[in-house]
């Protein structure tokens, strides 16, 4: 998962998480962050599953901050020996 600076996929990575379905047998992230932008993850073979929808602020709460806004979910399938 990547959290980006803006809704566009080529913006800067602010945060990331890695959930490893191979229990360590597959490739691991090599840098922090592993990619500089969301597009770099695409170039490296990750498929984007989901991005945060653009939801208008709740009236009366327009100025509150909460979760990181621009969340992108990727997956990659790898073959294991």
């Amino acid at each position, binding site marked *: 998962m990547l959290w980006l600076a803006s809704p566009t996929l080529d913006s800067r990575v602010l945060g990331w998480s890695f959930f490893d379905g191979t229990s360590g047998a597959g490739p691991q992230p090599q840098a922090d*962050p592993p990619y500089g932008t969301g597009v770099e993850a695409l170039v490296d073979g990750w498929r984007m599953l989901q991005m945060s929808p653009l939801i208008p602020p709740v009236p009366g709460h327009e100025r509150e*901050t909460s979760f990181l806004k621009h969340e992108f979910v990727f997956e990659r399938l790898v073959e294991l020996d």
Partner: protein
Amino acid sequence: MSDAPLLTTDQMASFVARGFLRFDAVIPDDINQQALEELPRLFRTWLDEFRGVTGGAAPTDIDTNDEYQLPRSGTVLHRAYAPDSAFGRMVRVPTIAGAIASLVGADPVVDHHFVHIKVAGDLHAQGLHCDAIIDQGPAFDIQLFWFPHDVAPREGGTRMVPGSHLRRVNMDDVSRYQHLAGEQYFAGDAGTVLIFHQGLWHAGAPNHGTRDRVMGKLRLNPMQPQVRLWDTSDLDARNRADDHMFARMEPGLVASELRRSEPWFEPSNTRLETVQRSTLWRYLTGDPEFDVDWYLTRTERRAGLVAK
């Protein structure tokens, strides 16, 4: 505690912007050594209390050692701990007493304390969270994180996210964030105390070291408005409401600290964070017209026009 040095305006502004203050090696070593004896016992006392109550025993059945009794929530701080106990001595160290008085007043009450022990070799990374629940309003609690022994990098020092304290989230709803730009893992000398705004995101970190990491955490509630409790001797000259990053901007004003961004902030949220901080600063100063970069002022003036 009247000789306790109050916080400066710079320290208060930094607390409002980043959500924490750090006092390195501020607690003398003899108190730290006492803490290393007492804090694990306080933890075991809580464990007995918790197991007893959840196991069905009446509270009076619990074999409580008076020396390590847990304070009841709502006890005034200066009566909550014996003056010669580790916690009692720690909160009376002048720098800490002054910081407490500046943030939550001279007579806050104890919410609770907890002793966090991260055992050597425990590599579990706790999920990011803020304590308690989602809170409303500008008034805030503080939490003291006391590390009574040296903590080297990767040896279980608390993970923390500067600038996260004003985001409205509930408990561990932020636990999916494994890595955020600009986050910190505590490492430092024995006797270091961090003071957090209650909302600051944090987590227990893996301990790759060979010794257990002990940390005492103390949550305090204010019992008076948190207005101008610090050393405000330089405040008025630095508290201009008309400092604007696209107009006249002066270094040294409070505004210059409150518009500070953090590496993990989205640009659009950075401005909203500035508004949150300005609102908190209005509460702390009692100045309803304070502003940074005119965000509050222009909209309040427009709203006034509509009302007419």
